[in-house]
């Protein structure tokens, strides 16, 4: 039986189920316990699991990320919540230099099964420091797996897989879309890491995207349909490892691809998709790969800047017409 629940509730259900299943899983971060989470993702978890397993930290990202890494090396399975990924920047030393490298450095003796999670991406007029997208940053680093979701079904299935996974995982959510509703079954299920999802089938053009840009792509696809253009929408769900097969199969069918990616363009997720498409489906392409990213700049506060900065359905539709050589 499925019911509609919000993204935040799906994440909480996933974490709680795993905590019931495995005593070694715990949740740690700023305001996760008594305040029920800055965005209420962990609401009620302190009541259920107690102070030992749902732990409020001081504002000390580098320190508590490192405590998570040490605990993971020593047999536990921490979930480390960052209030947003912007603040995880303080913890990059522990994520990049330690979590990602422990297995290699120790010749396989020490694994680091840890989930670093929190929202990534802009959330309205929050200005430069609070509006950044981190999928491209983290996906650049070998040793880490990177997941990025907004769909509640995917969120629950993937947070459970992430907690069970033996490798360190960066899990990206969306501050703006914690209230985003979707169907989630009552029964337990997992969503595998490393598999994209075709959210909408189409034949004329492939739109590859992830996180809240999924909604942008879907809206564009709907509008395009009204104009007789059939767009396929692929939600990557996992950024690293990237599901090449789903992307390539789609391009072989549509012969055109646009990447919609809220991270900055330089050396990012969109660049990676473009690379694998030209490598594996060069002969199938009827047009260059086009990407629509957040602008190659810092995001200021005023609404006029936010409007200009982000990908939106109109930008997608314009790009689709470009690759389809339709002038309108």
């Amino acid at each position, binding site marked *: 039986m499925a019911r509609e629940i919000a993204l935040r509730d799906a994440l909480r259900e996933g974490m709680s189920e795993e905590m019931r299943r495995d005593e070694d899983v715990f949740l740690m971060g700023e305001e996760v316990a008594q*305040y029920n989470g*800055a965005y209420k993702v962990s609401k009620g978890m302190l009541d259920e699991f107690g102070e030992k397993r749902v732990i409020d930290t001081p504002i*000390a990202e580098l320190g508590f990320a490192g405590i998570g890494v040490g605990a993971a090396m020593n047999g536990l399975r921490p979930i480390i919540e960052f209030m947003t990924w912007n603040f995880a920047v303080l913890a990059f030393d522990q994520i990049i230099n330690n979590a990602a490298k422990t297995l290699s450095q120790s010749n396989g003796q020490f694994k680091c099964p840890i989930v670093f999670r929190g929202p990534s991406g802009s959330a309205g007029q*929050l*200005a*430069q420091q609070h509006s950044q997208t981190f999928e491209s940053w983290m996906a650049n680093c070998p040793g880490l797996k990177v997941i990025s979701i907004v769909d509640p079904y995917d969120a629950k299935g993937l947070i459970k897989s992430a907690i069970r996974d033996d490798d360190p995982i960066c899990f990206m959510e969306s501050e703006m879309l914690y209230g985003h509703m979707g169907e989630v079954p009552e029964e337990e299920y997992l969503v595998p890491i490393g598999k994209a999802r075709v959210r909408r089938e189409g034949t004329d053009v492939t739109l590859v995207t992830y996180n809240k840009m999924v909604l942008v792509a879907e809206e564009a696809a709907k509008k395009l349909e009204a104009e007789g253009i059939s767009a396929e929408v692929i939600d990557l769900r996992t950024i690293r490892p990237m599901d090449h097969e789903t992307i390539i199969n789609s391009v072989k069918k549509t012969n055109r691809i646009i990447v919609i990616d809220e991270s900055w363009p330089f050396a990012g997720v969109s660049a990676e998709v473009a690379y694998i498409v030209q490598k594996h489906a060069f002969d199938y392409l009827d047009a260059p790969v086009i990407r629509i990213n957040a602008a190659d700049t810092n995001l200021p*506060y005023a609404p006029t800047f936010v409007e200009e900065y982000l990908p939106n359905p109109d930008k997608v539709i314009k790009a689709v017409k470009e690759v389809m050589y339709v002038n309108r």
Partner: protein
Amino acid sequence: MGKVADKNKTKASKPKYSKELYLQWYEQMLLIRRFEEKALMMYGQQKIRGFCHVYIGQEAITAGMETALTKDDCIVTAYRQHGTALGRGVTPKEAMAELFGKETGIVGGKGGSMHFFSKENNYFGGNGIVGAQIPIGAGIGFAEKYRGTKNLCVTMFGDGAARQGALHEAFNMAMTWKLPVLFICENNGYAMGTSVERTSNVIDLHRMGDGYGMPNEPVDGMQPETVYEAIQKAAKHIRSGKGPYFLEIKTYRYKGHSVSDPAKYRTKDELNDYKDKDPIKVTEKRILDGKMATEADIKKIKDKIKKMVEEAVEFAENSDYPDGSGLYEDNYVQTDYPYLE
């Protein structure tokens, strides 16, 4: 008349400082309070968006501090910064327009509530990353010392920020190198929903200076007088070349952490205890009791400030949003930088 009442009377009739100073404090605090009350209203009307953290309750710190510093001294602080910036000399118009995201704002609508900067006022900004400004403040002080000035950098941060590792690194280097830095922790008791008591065994935050041999003390932040005295003393120490000083100024924020926080983690009584010693109320009483001004004078000040704030809103309303096409301005000093499409 009893002894106690007598004592109160003498205290009340003999203010410690000049009338000018009291009135300056009063006006400064009242301006910040009224400005932010208006900002909250404007937020309610969605004229102001994003995060908005107000300083209401903490105004005595800015008022006392600015009268103990020179305008050549530098200040850097966190995102709860409207009051600090106004104290530095950012005008209510520039500040309100910034909150509205208008091009006439102090940073052209680029920063919003958390990020005012004003080079002409030696105001190095509101920083949105908790604790980031602590080493930055030490660096600003480093540059002053390097250039051989007598200026210092006031580096302000919250009780929550005091738990960041960067504090320790900055304290250590600032002390070792005798940098002209006045570290001020504005301890308002909470970091979002987390009380100071829940973050450490050491809740006398000023004692964190001890680990580095940095002189430190607690200060009552609900009165401009005590803040003024403490900062004067600390500044003198710093200007004599002896290196940094750390003040833990105890204060309270009356509102939630930001506009979206209902602040259920504290009691009404606690809040009311602080409101009873509200620095604006207390200073007003001191002024009247000390006959430094009449009720009519006070009313004149209130009217003046009300008008200033109203004019600031009008100015913000009537200003334009920056053109979205300016999105790439000021990301590099190089003006023909080749941005990616």
